[in-house]
């Protein structure tokens, strides 16, 4: 805030707009910039949070459904045929990738059976990595906002307090009416920073543990499936 503006608001303290919108309008443009940035960060964080919550819930549901079908005694060939033609996620994707490698090896007349086990493991690993990556994307945004948000808000606060002290110096008046608007608007920036950062940190932790859980579940499934396939290979060989 310009010193003159502060002096003006001090004089006209009675009609100074102390609502949130008023605070925003009175702020120095750098503080405004910080506030806008923090609001955008908050919007983005919540978008990610909503998306991820839905994604993880969906993934969990899909895994449950797939496991039920997989262990229902249905033929693997049939299952593969039903899944191969549509885009798959998580466990289904892992299953399809392994089955594809398996089928490819046997289409060639069963000549490449010796190292098939290793190839299948590789394919499983790669697919799991890809799936985890899909689960983890944009979690870093949450982490960044969570750690940097308070600092950004603090920057806005420091800037606002700085300019309000400048206006004290300029108006040579230390009455609270001169200082208060600047302080209030500066603290508003910190409030926004905390508002953005707190949910980001909480949900980042929640999502990180969720990803780890689902990754472990995928790994477990992949190991089991790999064991089944290698038994089949040994029987045929």
């Amino acid at each position, binding site marked *: 805030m310009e010193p003159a503006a502060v002096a003006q608001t001090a004089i006209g303290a009675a009609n100074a*707009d*102390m*609502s*949130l*919108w008023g605070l925003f309008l009175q702020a120095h443009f750098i503080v405004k910039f910080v506030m806008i940035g923090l*609001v955008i960060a*908050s*919007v*983005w*964080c*919540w*978008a*990610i*949070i*909503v*998306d*991820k919550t*839905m*994604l993880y819930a969906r993934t969990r549901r899909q895994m449950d459904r797939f496991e039920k079908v997989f262990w229902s005694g249905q033929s693997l060939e049939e299952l593969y045929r039903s899944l191969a033609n549509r885009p798959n*996620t998580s466990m289904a994707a892992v299953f399809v990738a392994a089955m594809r490698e398996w089928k490819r090896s046997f289409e060639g007349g069963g000549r490449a059976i010796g190292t098939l086990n290793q190839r299948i493991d590789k394919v499983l690993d790669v697919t799991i990595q890809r799936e985890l990556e*899909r689960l983890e994307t944009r979690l870093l945004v949450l982490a960044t906002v969570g750690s940097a948000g308070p600092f950004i808000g603090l920057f806005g606060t420091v800037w606002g307090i700085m300019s309000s002290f400048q206006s004290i110096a300029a108006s040579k008046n230390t009455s609270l009416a001169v200082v208060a608007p600047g302080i209030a608007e500066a603290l508003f920036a910190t409030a926004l920073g905390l508002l953005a950062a707190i949910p980001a940190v909480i949900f980042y932790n929640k999502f990180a543990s969720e990803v780890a859980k689902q990754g472990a579940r995928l790994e477990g499934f992949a190991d089991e499936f790999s064991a089944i396939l290698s038994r089949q290979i040994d029987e045929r060989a």
Partner: protein
Amino acid sequence: MPPVRPGMVVSVAAHTVVLTWGLISFGNAVPNNAPPMPALPVELLTTEEFNQITKGELKSKDVSKPKQKVEKVEPVKRDPKPDAPVAKQDVKPNNTEPPKQADAPKPEPKPAPETAKAEPAPPAPKPEPPKQAEAKAPEPTPQPEKPKTAEKPPVPTPPKRPEPPKKVAKAEPKPKAAEEKPKKPEREFNPDAISALLDKRAPSRTERSGDEISQTASLGTATGEASRLSVNELQALVSAISNQIRPNWNIPIGAQGASDLLVVVRFQLNQDGTLSGNPQVVNNSANPFFSAAADSALRAVYLSAPFQDLPAASYEQWRDVQITLNPSQMLGG
């Protein structure tokens, strides 16, 4: 991944709702209607100012005339006329006679004013206290009834006779007879009785003393303060005193480090500028010539008394003087 990303939509909607709610609910700041704190008037006083207060106190019911604070009753009333003998009232008892008193007429003045009541000698005391003149009038009847008309001067004169001859002149016609009578017993000077005549009273404190004790000041004066000196006036006072001492101070010539021989002398003065009591050297020094310098400084103070040209109005300020004598200044000036 499904192409629809509802997250952003939901988030923007939620933020809009929350911010709108914030704008409405925080609306305008509610002014804090706390009652204003009552202001307490506080006045800061220095010790000096506090001691000089003669201002009235709110609780005082006494509407007498303003007085300064007095902590102790003065044992003997001061004679309104500043005569040399009266000066001994504040004297601290010391057996060594100060050199100055040597030339003063010792035996005569002393007994009369101070120990008037105690002493058997003078029948004079009765007529003496001027105010009591009327009351005591019957007694000195043999003498002319006039002492009243003759006023105070004649009565106290006898003892002080040597000094104020004019007063005697005024009162001349009648009191002459009165004079003779008191004179006779006093004229005889008994050298053996000197010790009895010496002032043996305890040293008077440097507290404020006055006619009666008044711990609280009542009613007060217009200014609310006793007269006080500005820094300039104080410096003028100090330089006036030291200028009078300077010509009388003979510093031991050739003293090593003469410039270090600062001597701080303290002495009390009477209102007429004469010394009251003995001057003292307050400081000390390792310089071997210091005692010589100190003695000479004391001598200088004795020689310079009575001090001239000290403003009577600010007697309180120079009643007790402590002054630093600097040989280098003396030598230079």
